[in-house]
């Protein structure tokens, strides 16, 4: 902390809290709703929480500290939408990160707790098309009134990292462990090299599939590809 900053803080009578104090307090209040956190530098915290626990987190913050609401940033990840709620807690910038799927595309408004979020949420709704539940004034803010509602300027198409031609193979690979058939050229080359014509596939034995899928989950391949384990297909296609 610089000398000037210290002087200003002492003059303002601000009790400085450390980064880890805030994180531990939120972890204690929210328990398993805090997914992870990181403190990359002094006076800067990122806390990833579940979207359902957002109101609870903001309430918990304002019960103990008096956070200043700074702003909300929205990031479009293609298949997911990420909202970052920035708060200033006695000189610490606390960022609550929430990620929700674009299929849901809804989150609770924090307008009743932080009134200044009203126009920022309206702007995010304009540009990204995110719906805020129980918003007091869900109207246009910066887009013209005759702007088509399905067209949002900053919203990316609902697509993951996998290009269209590779989506079907990836889907079958994750769900069954089998890739598409190999060309005869590859088979001939394998025979020449003294190998069996096709490699030992996971789908050859049913017991191998769970282990294969476990590796997929451990390497986060299913998340990167955007695979839905319940429906057993990609979330976009």
């Amino acid at each position, binding site marked *: 902390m610089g000398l000037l900053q210290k002087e200003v803080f002492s*003059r303002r*009578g601000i009790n400085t809290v450390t980064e880890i104090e805030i994180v531990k307090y939120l972890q204690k209040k929210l328990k398993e709703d805090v997914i992870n956190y990181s403190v990359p530098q002094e006076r800067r915290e990122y806390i990833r929480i579940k979207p359902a626990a957002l109101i609870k987190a903001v309430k918990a913050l304002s019960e103990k500290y*008096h956070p*200043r609401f700074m702003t909300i940033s929205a990031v479009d990840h293609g298949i997911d939408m990420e909202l970052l709620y920035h708060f*200033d807690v006695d000189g610490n910038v606390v960022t609550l990160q929430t990620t929700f799927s674009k299929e849901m595309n809804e989150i609770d408004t924090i307008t009743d707790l932080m*009134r*200044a979020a009203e*126009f920022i949420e309206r702007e995010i709704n304009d540009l990204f098309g995110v719906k805020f539940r129980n918003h007091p004034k869900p109207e246009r803010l910066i887009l013209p009134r005759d702007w088509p509602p399905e067209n949002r300027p900053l919203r990316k198409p609902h697509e993951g990292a996998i290009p269209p031609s590779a989506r079907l193979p990836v889907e079958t690979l994750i769900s069954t462990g089998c890739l598409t058939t190999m060309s005869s050229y590859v088979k001939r080359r394998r025979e020449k090299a003294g190998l069996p014509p096709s490699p030992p596939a996971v789908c050859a034995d049913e017991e191998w599939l769970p282990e294969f899928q476990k590796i997929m989950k451990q390497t986060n391949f299913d998340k990167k590809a955007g695979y839905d384990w319940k429906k057993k297909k990609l979330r976009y296609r």
Partner: protein
Amino acid sequence: MAEKSIAKQRVLIYYPERCTGCKYCEIGCALLHFGEINLEKSHIHTLFDEKTNEFEALVCQHCEDPVCAASCPVEAIVVDEKTGWVKINPMKCIGCKTCIYVCPSSMPWFNRDHRIAMKCDFCDPVRDGKPICVEFCSPRALEVVARAEAWGFFRKRYFQGEE
């Protein structure tokens, strides 16, 4: 207004040590009154003095005996008898700017679109006298208190306890 009701009148007070200069009060004011984010169209302004490193808010004090009302040639500015808030009647105002010149802190401002003077109305008709700037201010630098409490606050802050 009677002496008692003056003491009960609700006014804004401002804590400069809590203010961070985020200007959300100005945004909220312009958004409520004009539906746009334009800081020039706000009835409240926050300033930063680099010499003393302190903030100051320019906000209408809703004086007990307002000079703006006294100077208005068409009697467009009146003190509300029930609440004590000083308001400009936009239908009567002729846009002569006299109130802007006579006000010590020049709180009324001239709206070029409507060609009339405008000032803080305590968000009265829309929000029933609960100013939006107070709600938008999350560091709680703005507060609504009774006039009697504000007297003590200002005496302490500007005269350092002098009676």
